[in-house]
């Protein structure tokens, strides 16, 4: 089991540690509901050092990444960030990732923890001779400071003017507590906030500095439990749930990150075909009408017939409702459609609703 550089810190804070994607990660510190609220109301600090960082360098870098991913990086500015799925030839998803562009010959891909090895292998296997692929996952620690007070907190310890960093942009070489950091205005909670990349051996120093700066705002360390509900409310996909080798980004409703008309990329043909003939199942949001909590894997039915399953679900503290994302037969995917979720052999009523459940509070 892998540990982040902050493992001891989490244990000393009394965190409940769980296994996630091959890593020992904090599930919660004081409690998921409190940490969730801290992020929505003020700010929460996450250790997300388990995420993978893969550097792509060389003359052919831009063209290579264009082939790997479904989104189009040709219009990207330097110091911009782009979200994209990465597909197999059959349209199934290898991973979803962030692309950080330093310049046309240098990009950082940030990938899901559980997929690091698979992704690196996949990327290496397609790499042309004029591109270098370097897995830097071990060298980077990553912290996410998320919530409406994030900028105010972080600005206390960073000289660079953070209000100049627009949504999905980044700055590099910024000093926090004497440590050189890359800071992007990105996140996975539906709130404004920053993701901070630092050398692994400086993780504790930077963590402590942020915690101290945030004390007066009651910034709390937040764990994966809160993070999962925050991202579910914002309807952000989680690989292994809403995306997988078996689920295409079109089925997951990520059409705007799939540029079918850009030049040749892996999965293009299959995805064009899917788009043309129409997908047979689609990711939707569900709100329970009966009492009961939908959980991953629960079956979704209409008139006793299976039409799909829950990919993620739970109690939403923001909405005070039980919500879920579900991959279901496209015939029942329209808003207002009435379905049953099978909870412990009982058919409980649910309704297809608009997603995201929670309107994202991004600073554009």
């Amino acid at each position, binding site marked *: 089991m892998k540990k982040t550089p902050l493992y001891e810190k989490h244990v000393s804070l009394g965190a409940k540690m769980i296994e996630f994607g091959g890593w020992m990660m904090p*599930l919660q510190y004081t409690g998921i*509901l409190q940490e969730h609220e801290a992020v929505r109301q003020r700010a929460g600090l996450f250790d997300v050092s388990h995420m993978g960082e893969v550097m792509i360098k060389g003359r052919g870098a831009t063209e290579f990444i264009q082939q790997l991913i479904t989104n189009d990086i040709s219009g990207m500015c330097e110091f911009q960030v782009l979200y994209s799925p990465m597909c197999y030839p059959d349209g199934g998803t290898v991973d979803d990732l962030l692309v950080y562009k330093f310049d046309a010959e240098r990009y950082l891909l940030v990938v899901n923890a559980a997929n690091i090895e698979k992704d690196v292998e996949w990327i290496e296997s397609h790499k042309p001779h004029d591109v270098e692929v370097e897995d830097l996952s071990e060298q980077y620690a990553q912290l996410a400071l998320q919530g409406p007070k994030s900028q105010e907190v972080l600005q206390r310890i960073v000289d660079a003017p953070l209000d100049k960093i627009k949504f999905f942009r980044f700055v590099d070489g910024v000093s926090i507590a004497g440590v050189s950091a890359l800071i992007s205005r990105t996140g996975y909670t539906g709130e404004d906030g920053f993701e901070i990349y630092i050398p692994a051996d400086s993780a504790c120093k930077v963590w402590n500095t942020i915690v101290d700066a945030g004390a007066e705002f009651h910034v709390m360390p937040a764990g994966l*439990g809160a993070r999962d509900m925050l991202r579910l409310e914002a309807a952000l996909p989680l690989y292994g749930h809403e995306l997988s080798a078996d689920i295409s980004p079109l089925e997951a409703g990520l059409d705007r990150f799939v540029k079918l008309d850009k030049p040749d990329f892996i999965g293009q043909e299959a995805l064009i075909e899917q788009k043309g003939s129409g997908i047979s199942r689609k990711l939707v949001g569900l709100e329970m009408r009966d009492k009961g909590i939908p*959980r991953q894997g629960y079956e979704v039915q209409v008139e006793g017939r299976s039409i799909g399953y829950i990919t993620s679900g739970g109690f939403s503290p923001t909405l005070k409702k039980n919500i879920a994302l579900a991959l279901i037969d496209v015939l029942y995917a329209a808003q207002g459609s009435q379905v049953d979720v099978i909870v412990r052999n009982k058919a409980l009523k649910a309704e297809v609703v608009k997603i995201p459940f929670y309107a994202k509070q991004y600073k554009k």
Partner: protein
Amino acid sequence: MKVINGLKYSKDHEWVKVEGNRAIIGITDYAQDSLGDIVFVDLPEVGRTVKAGDAVAVVESVKAASDVYSPVSGTVVEVNTNLEASPELINQDPYENWILVLEMSDPGELDSLMDAEGYERFCEEEA
């Protein structure tokens, strides 16, 4: 971890308070702490008969659903409907906020449960 003297305890972390032939059942402090924030309690129907070891209710925390196993056999005669609106009461005081009451069909089953001291030891070994 809080344990109350005079109650009986199961290995699945339920407690039983015996009043005549009635068994008042809830989950222990250890159980609520490991579950985390409780957001829903699925109560059984009054009148249902259960055997010892049957799943009789479900307590759902933010992260997962957990069965509550009946430590004894009997018929459900009462459920704590306060938990429908305020499931978090179990986190606040798991011994005050019982889940259900059984009319026991075989009170002899109580003998196989642990007392407070035995349960405390059991939890230490599990931890």
